[in-house]
C-alpha cells in the first residue's frame, strides 16, 4: 500500500511538472498584456529539439538548454509578428501552434522509435532517506526541482520586486506605463520570450523525462490545458502550481484506473483531463467580476506608442 501510494504521488509530480512550466511561462506573458495561444506549438518544438540534442550529444544539460532555446526561438517569431507587425494575437498564436506541430514532426521524423533512459535522478543526501517525504520530495530529476524553484521565484518576483511591478504595470495599463517611461514593447518581448522558453522546457521535460521518447504531437493538448490553468489560477503563481497538480492527479486516475480493474474504457478515462479543463473554466469564468478584477487589463490589446 505504502509503495502504491508513493508511486501514485510520483506519477502526479511527473504529470504536473510540464504543466507547471508551461502555465507559469504563459502567465508571465499574459501578465505583460499579451495572449500567446501558441503554447502547444512551442511545447512540441521544445520536446523535439530537447530529444534531438540528447540523442546527438548525449548531454542532458544541452538537451534542456535546447528545449529552452527552441521554445524561446519560436516565441520570438510570435513576438516580432505581434509587437513588430501589429498582427492579431489570437491568429498569430494559432499560426504558431499549427507551425509548431508541422516543424516538430518534420524535425523529429528520424527520431521516432529511439529510446532514451530518461533524466538522471538526483537524490539529496540524508534528506532522501527520510521515510515517505524522502522519496516524494528529494529524489527527482533536475527539472522537477527546477519547477519548484521556478514557482517560488516567480511568485516572489511578481509580488516583491521592482521588475514584477513594472511587468504588472505594463499589462494593466500600457499607456500609463509608457507615459511614465517604461519601454512597453521591450518588456513585452522579454515576457513573450520567457513564456516561450518555459513552454520549451515543458516540452523538453515530456521528451526527456515523462515519456522519455519522441512521438509526433506528443504534448496531446497540454499547451491548451496550460492556457486554461492560467485562467483557473486567476493569474497567480501558487494557484497555477496547485492547478497543475490537480490535473496531474487526473492523469494518474487515467493510468491507475485500469490497473485497479475499473470497468471504464480507456478512451473515457483519457477524456477526463479535457472535460475537467472545461468544467474548471466554467466554474472560474462564471463570475465575470472575478475575471475582470484579476486578469491583466490590457490582455490581447495591441500597443501603439504614438496613439
Amino acid at each position, binding site marked *: 500500500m505504502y509503495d502504491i501510494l508513493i508511486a501514485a504521488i510520483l506519477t502526479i509530480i511527473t504529470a504536473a511538472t510540464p504543466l507547471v512550466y508551461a502555465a507559469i511561462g504563459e502567465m508571465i506573458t499574459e501578465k505583460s498584456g499579451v495572449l500567446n495561444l501558441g503554447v502547444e506549438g512551442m511545447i512540441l518544438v521544445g520536446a523535439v529539439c530537447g530529444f534531438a540534442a540528447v540523442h546527438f550529444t548525449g548531454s542532458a544539460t544541452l538537451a534542456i538548454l535546447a528545449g529552452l532555446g527552441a521554445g524561446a526561438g519560436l516565441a520570438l*517569431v510570435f513576438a516580432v509578428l505581434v509587437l513588430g507587425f*501589429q498582427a492579431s494575437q489570437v*491568429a498569430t498564436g494559432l499560426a504558431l501552434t499549427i*507551425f509548431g506541430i*508541422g516543424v516538430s*514532426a518534420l524535425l523529429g521524423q528520424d527520431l521516432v522509435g529511439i529510446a532514451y533512459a530518461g533524466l538522471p535522478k538526483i537524490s539529496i543526501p540524508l534528506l532522501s532517506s527520510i521515510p515517505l517525504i524522502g522519496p516524494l520530495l528529494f529524489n527527482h530529476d533536475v527539472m522537477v526541482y527546477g519547477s519548484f524553484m521556478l514557482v517560488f521565484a516567480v511568485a516572489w518576483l511578481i509580488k516583491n520586486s521592482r521588475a514584477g511591478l513594472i511587468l504588472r504595470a505594463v499589462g494593466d495599463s500600457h499607456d500609463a506605463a509608457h507615459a511614465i517611461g517604461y519601454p512597453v514593447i521591450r518588456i513585452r518581448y522579454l515576457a513573450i520570450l520567457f513564456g516561450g522558453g518555459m513552454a520549451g522546457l515543458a516540452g523538453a521535460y515530456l521528451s526527456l523525462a515523462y515519456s522519455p521518447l519522441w512521438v509526433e504531437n506528443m504534448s496531446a*493538448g497540454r499547451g*491548451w490545458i496550460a492556457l486554461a490553468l492560467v485562467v483557473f489560477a486567476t493569474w497567480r503563481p501558487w494557484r497555477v502550481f496547485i492547478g497543475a497538480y490537480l490535473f496531474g492527479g487526473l492523469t494518474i486516475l487515467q493510468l491507475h484506473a485500469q490497473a485497479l480493474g475499473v470497468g471504464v474504457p480507456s478512451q473515457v478515462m483519457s*477524456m477526463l483531463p479535457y472535460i475537467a479543463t*472545461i468544467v474548471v473554466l466554467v466554474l472560474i469564468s462564471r463570475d465575470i467580476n472575478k475575471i475582470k478584477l484579476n486578469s491583466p487589463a490590457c490582455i490581447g490589446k495591441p500597443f501603439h506608442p504614438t496613439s
Partner: protein
Amino acid sequence: MLLSLVKRPEQSKAMVYVSPIIALGLTLISGILLFQIMGVHPAQALYAFFVDPITTKYGWAELGVKATPLILIGVALSVGFRAGVWNIGAEGQLTLGAICGGGIALWLYQVDSVFVLPLMIICGVLGGMAWAAIPAFLKTRFNANEILTSLMLTYVATLLLSLLIHGAWRDPDGFNFPVSRIFSDSATLPIIWQGTRLHLGWILTIAAAIAVWVLMSKTIIGFQIKVIGQAPKAGRHAGFSVNRTIWFSLMLGGGMAGMAGLFEVAGPIGQLLPSISPGYGFTAIIVAFVGRLHPVGVFFAGLVMALSYLGGESAQITMNLPLAVTGVFQGLLLFFLLACDVLITYRLQFKFPVTSTRGSKHV
C-alpha cells in the same frame, strides 16, 4: 537605413488582396530554402509539390475532394471570425458530424432507399451543431472562453470516435481491426465526375459558399455580425444581441463542419475510421484568413490549401519527402500573411539616418 512603419490615412483596399499573394510568394521562397537545407533539389521538389498533382484529370478531381471540407468549414469560420467568435474546434465538430451521420449509415446499412443519404446529411449537420452548442452555451451562459472549450472538445470528439470504433461500431467481419462496416451504396455520396472520386459534396459546398455570401452581404443578420465584430458597443446600442451572434456563428460553424465530416466519411472514405481528417478543421482557419474572411476568397484559398495536401502526398511518393512538410508550408503561409497584413494599415518607409537623431524615439 532604417525601415519604419507609417500609418496610412485610411486602410489600403488594394493591400487586402495583394497581401495573400505576397505571402504565397514568400512561402514559396522559404520552401526553396527549406528544400535546399533538406538536401533536395528545390525545382524538382516544388514541381512534385505544386505542379505534378494537377497534371491529370484525376488530380484536378482530387483537388476538389480535398478542397470540399476546407471551403465548407473555412466559409463558416470566416463568419464567426468576423463577429469575433473564435471557434477553433471545427475539427471536433467535423468528427461529431462524421459520427452522427455515419451512425445513421451503420444503423440503416441494410436499407436501400434514396432517403438514407439526406437523413445522414441532416444528422451530420445536427451532430456538428450539437458539439458547437456546448461552447456557445458555456460562453453565453458562463462566459467561458470559446477558444479553449471548443478546442478541448476536439480531443473529446476524437476519443469518442475511437471508443465507438473499438467497441460497438466495429465491423463484425473486420478481423478485429478498429474500422466500421463499409457504407452501403445508398449511404455513399454519388460521384459527379466518372473515373474520379469527386462527389456530390463539391456541388453542395459551392452552394453553401454562395448561400453564406448572400447571407453576409444581403441580409440584416450579416450586417449585424459585421457590426458586432467591428464595433461591439455600437452594435449593442443598435440593439444587436452579442449572445445571438455567438450562437449564430457557432451553429453555422458547427453545422458546416459537421456536414464536412459527413461528406468525408460518406464520400472518399466510405466508412468510419479512427482518423478521418488530416486536420481539415485547423487548416480551415488558415483558409479563412488567407481568403480574407470572404466566401470568394475562401474558395480560392481552399483550393491552394488542398493543393498543399495533394503536394505533400505526391512529394512523399515521388521524392520520399516527409508528409509533415505540408504542415510547415501551411503554418508559414499564415505567418507571412499575418506579417504582410501590416501593409493594410501601415506603409513601409525607408528612413535614412540624418545627423542629430538623438531625439528620435524608436519603440
